[in-house]
């Protein structure tokens, strides 16, 4: 694929995958502003590295998530363990239900703790499948695993998550 076609393909993926990449980064870092920022950075990085992309290797959307994964790691390396949120980046819409926000936050904390109890590979599969919404084939390309291995990991991960969340809440989800 020549450069121009690669650029056209990358541009065509923007609208659909910006949201998915932002969602993937959000679940990993927990900060909306950073998720939006890094999602934009993924496409810029992809454009810079486009000459090194080989379409016969992995699908371009999988490649974008590899870039996103690396950017998240880079970000974490420079970050303190405690997450810092600049006060002016916290925006609450006028019509937001504060109680609903609080409940969501509690639920998110519960799910986050459950995800922490998975193996790193299981967690990556869940993050890419559920939040990046990649297929198991595309996920396998990102993680250098066969799609059969991905399906196996997502099944065991989901069963583990259900057990953990059931035990935590005392009732089924």
């Amino acid at each position, binding site marked *: 694929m020549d450069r121009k076609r690669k650029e056209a393909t990358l541009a065509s993926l923007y609208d659909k995958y910006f949201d998915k990449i932002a969602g993937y980064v959000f679940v990993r870092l927990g900060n909306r502003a950073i998720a939006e920022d890094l999602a934009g950075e993924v496409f810029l990085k992809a454009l810079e590295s486009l000459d090194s992309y080989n379409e016969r290797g992995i699908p371009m959307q999988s490649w974008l998530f590899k870039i996103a994964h690396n950017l998240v790691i880079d970000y974490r390396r420079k*970050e*303190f363990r405690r997450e810092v949120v600049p006060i002016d980046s916290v925006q609450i819409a006028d019509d937001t239900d504060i109680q609903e926000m609080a409940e969501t936050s509690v639920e998110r904390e519960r799910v986050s703790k459950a995800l922490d109890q998975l193996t790193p590979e299981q967690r990556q599969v869940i993050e890419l499948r559920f939040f990046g919404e990649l297929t*198991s084939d595309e996920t396998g390309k990102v993680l250098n695993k066969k799609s059969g291995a991905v399906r196996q990991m997502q099944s065991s991960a989901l069963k583990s998550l259900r057990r953990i969340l059931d035990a935590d809440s005392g009732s089924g989800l």
Partner: protein
Amino acid sequence: MLDNFESILDMCIDRINRGDSIEDCLVDYPEYEDELEPLLKSMFSIKGSYSFVPQASAKQAAWQRFSASLRESERAQERSVLPLPWILGKARTWAIAATIVIIALAGYFGITQLLPPGVIPPDETGNFAFYISDEQNAIGDFQSLDLSISKVRLYKEDGGWVEFVPETKEVDLTKLQGDLALQVWRGDIPQGKYTGIFLYVTRASGILGNNNGKVDIVITGNKLHLDMPFEISDAPLTEFVYDMTVIAASGSGYNLQPVKDESGTGNGIKIQKVNGQGQGPGSGQARGSELGQDQGQYQEQQQGQVEVKDQGQYQEQQQGQVEVKDQGQYQEQQQGQVEVKDQGQYQEQQQGQVEVKDQGQYQEQQQEQSIGKHQGKYQEQEQEQGIGEDEGQYQEQVQVSGSGSEQAQGPG
């Protein structure tokens, strides 16, 4: 028909990602309903807890940056296209010519400074000078705070951008506090209206005072975005100050953020230009009267006798007699007699007699007599007789002659 549960679960996950409901999947696989339903409900709940839709404005802004980069990439490709048959016919000639061009470019820019296409090269006579400065907040916590700046992008009102690589890439913000600003680049920028600046930072770390160790500074996305309209006109020089500040965050972290109020090109933006902190062209404007022998930049308003032998940059407003033999930078507002033999950087506002022989950096506001010989960095606010007794926050080892010795670290 698939009889592998994991494959069926995989397909249902794809369908839910595409917007199908749990019921839609269960209808198609009734024999697996008991196993599937609880897992799909867990998936639904997990996705819902992290439900996130990016803001339209953020997505649009990112698209503008991406499409601007895309256009620049296309222009770069057009510039690199050469007629192929003629090249093949003149291969040897082109090889020689290309070698000459590369050698010339390497010599002009320096072999390590060949710039990628689309990046504006520096020019000492250019119409735009870019400065870095620091607004004091938590900077006093640091002995040094180093930034590595890889590039700067100026965004145009029409959606495009221009980019340059600073000639001075490494800056220590502790040396650029208040009005002090360091020129990191000068060159020719296209005239027009601009909407903001991104400063790309590859490294930001500091060493806390009192040997409290090294800390990394948080910068979101490794770049600082200053959302500020400005214009580059046909004036010979537009000077832009990019002011930033480090603030203590929750816990033990620090954030670095641009400061809009202290940034820009307006007349209200004060610049005390710093020399010698790195490479790059030095530009200075001497304002005020000159007495003595000095090198550098200064602003001097004085009444009285003064003998100045200094190198560096200072702002001096004094009434009275002063003998200054210093190297470095200082801001001095004093009334009375002062004998200063210091090296380093300080801000001194004093009334009364002071004899200071110090090396390092300090901020001193005193209203009484102070005899001190200090080494190190401190902030001193004293209203009593200051002989080894000071209030405020500092990190230093102070030895005061004739009054015993004082060694203190941390908040006093």
